């Protein structure tokens, strides 16, 4: 009795403390999500957004029967895979290296975070220059070893690889720091006992570090998956005048870019809202799949 009453008395304080977050979330997170859902059931013209016509699920029907949608979905998936997988692997490797006692450790750690602090626009513009067909440095370097200039922008794989380079460059440091933080909380005696058992550096990494980092790795996978589904600024800016299509042949149009193109170039706000909601559902599903797969795998491994 006494115990329960006390818990109830304490109970209100935490709720009060978290309330501001949820109020702000309701206003700027939940409401837009629900309102976007509402908009997606209407035909709304950007030129005249105050008037809208109820169309039910028509926007979704059109979206799912549109080649542009499936193309964007596929691009989002391939760009997501070729940027997220290397990104996390490289980050893990770098974190492992930074975890050694290095001279100038702080410098390296700060330097790692610099790309993350760079704006998408600035980074993309610089990289578009590097990937330029006629005057780009990458083609110049390739030319030094006798490779013909590559028109990075026009090919599906070349452009998507260029984009994955930009994305990887921007996010490796961020993920590396998170891994590093996770690594530093691994108790040193685990390594010591592993070393006594005769485990090599690699075996220590494989059997001590990685299992200890499970929750951290799961976190970065979830965050990167969400980021990958929302990729927008890089393809838009990389494409210059054809950025809103994701290249002249939509070869790197992602879902985010499709949303922008339909809403702000084609003025179809209701349709764009349907794209937005579809992206939201895909993200939720992807995150659920990620977490269940990861849990099951680790449970089996354990």
């Amino acid at each position: 009795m006494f115990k329960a009453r006390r818990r109830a008395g304490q109970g209100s304080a935490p709720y009060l403390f978290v309330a501001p977050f949820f109020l702000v979330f309701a206003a700027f997170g939940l409401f837009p999500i629900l309102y976007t859902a509402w908009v997606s059931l209407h035909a709304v013209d950007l030129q005249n957004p105050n008037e809208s016509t109820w169309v039910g699920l028509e926007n979704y029907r059109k979206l799912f029967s549109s080649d542009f949608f499936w193309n964007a979905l596929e691009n989002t998936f391939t760009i997501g895979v070729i940027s997220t997988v290397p990104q996390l692997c490289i980050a893990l490797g770098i974190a492992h290296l930074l975890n050694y006692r290095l001279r100038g450790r702080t410098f390296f750690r700060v330097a790692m975070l610099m790309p993350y602090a760079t704006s998408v626009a600035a980074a993309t513009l610089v990289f578009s220059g590097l990937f330029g067909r006629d005057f780009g440095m990458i083609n110049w370097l390739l030319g030094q070893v006798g490779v013909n200039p590559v028109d990075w922008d026009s090919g599906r794989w070349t452009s998507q690889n260029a984009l994955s380079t930009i994305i990887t460059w921007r996010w490796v440091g961020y993920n590396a720091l998170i891994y590093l933080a996770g690594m530093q909380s691994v108790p040193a005696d685990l390594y010591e006992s592993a070393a006594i058992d005769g485990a090599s550096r690699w075996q220590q990494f494989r059997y001590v570090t990685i299992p200890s980092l499970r929750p951290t790795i799961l976190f970065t996978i979830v965050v990167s998956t969400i980021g990958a589904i929302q990729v927008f600024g890089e393809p838009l800016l990389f494409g210059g005048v054809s950025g809103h299509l994701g290249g002249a042949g939509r070869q790197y149009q992602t879902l985010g870019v499709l949303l922008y193109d339909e809403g702000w170039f084609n003025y179809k706000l209701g349709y764009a809202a349907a794209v937005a909601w579809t992206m939201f559902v895909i993200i939720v599903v992807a995150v659920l799949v990620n977490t269940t797969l990861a849990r099951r795998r680790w449970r089996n491994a354990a």
Partner: protein
Amino acid sequence: MRITRRMPTALVGTLAVAALSLCACGSDSDDGGGNVTLNVQLFGSFGYKESGLFDEYQKLHPNISIKFTSVQQESTYWPKIQSQLNAPTGVGDVYAAEVSRIAQVTQNQADRWVDLKTFGAGDLEADYYDWKWKAGTTADGKILGLGTDIGPLAICYRKDLFAKAGLPTDRQELAKSWTSWQAFLDLGKQYKAKAPRGSAFVDTAGGLYNAILGSSIKQYYDESGKPIHETNPAIRDAWNLGVQAAQTGLTARLKQFDEAWNKAFSSGSFASIACPSWMISYIKGQDKNGSGKWDVAPGPGVGNWGGSYLGIPKNSRHQKESYDLIRWLTAPDQQVRLFQDSGIFPASKVAASRPEVADAKDPYFGDAPVGKIFGDVAQNLPVAVHGPRDGSILDAFNNGLLSIETQKTDPDKAWKDTMKNVENLLG
């Protein structure tokens, strides 16, 4: 059955860009002492700030202060303006509309722009090129924009590169040799045969296509407002010439306004470009040491590319003051000054006929009589039929041609893709 309902205006701001209209409003209201702040939002470069016209206007009218912002890309500017136009209270007082958007204003948004006739703009009609004026008025005679500038088309070319390829370099001679666009391309084939390494005849197939179609009265819409992108023979002709240029390797396979395109002006990746009057100062900016290398000649057809209007949104709280400002900015004296300072060609034919413009020669372009070359085109331009989505449709065609140039897409497939893109944006 479809139900049309009005959404509460305040709720509409949720989508990201729409939200822009709700912030950054500032308070531009009257402070009681008769002082008025006019919020002027433009894109690209109109030259007003650069030529000191805003400062001068504020000096002439001490009670007016001008708050000026500019967005570099028109393609990001226009969607932003759309949400502001629909905000309940005034966000901006003066907006600009590019010629490819003006039909959207006159045909779809006449209720959201101030009819300038109410302030006496009707008297200005005689000052303007007929085609320019008409595009800014609605079918029932409302005047929604005052023309700032126009983009009559000529051909800019690199004399040094032409000479290396054994082509004539004299502008008169060239103008006589390219009497048609096909003749222009034939000259291009001659150029290609002896061109310096890495140099194409013309910059882009899209730029060529746009210049060719620019001389047509009917482009993407017919007089009744019906889209005719699929059936208009003028589009097919222009497209076919663009395809021919792309497939015979006459183009530099670039995207206009890309960094690589900018660099190509000085690197010599292309030797000629369809050149509206505003391109003159653009070239000077990109090829700083190009004086004497470039020249400009009348092109195979008369066409127009670009140029803008200034208008006032209905939700502006200072419509009269805004009108006084735009009327002054677009008055012949100011248009002449902008031409002299930045080569912005007057939309006012009164301004264009002043000797400062009509007799102007440009030393950078080998003393070419730019005033006469562009003025002649402006004088002969037909009153073209505009439609609300001209700009976006053109963009789709440009991307179609670009895919032929850079991705080796089959022209038939590129045409079909373009039709699909156009239908998607209209649908």
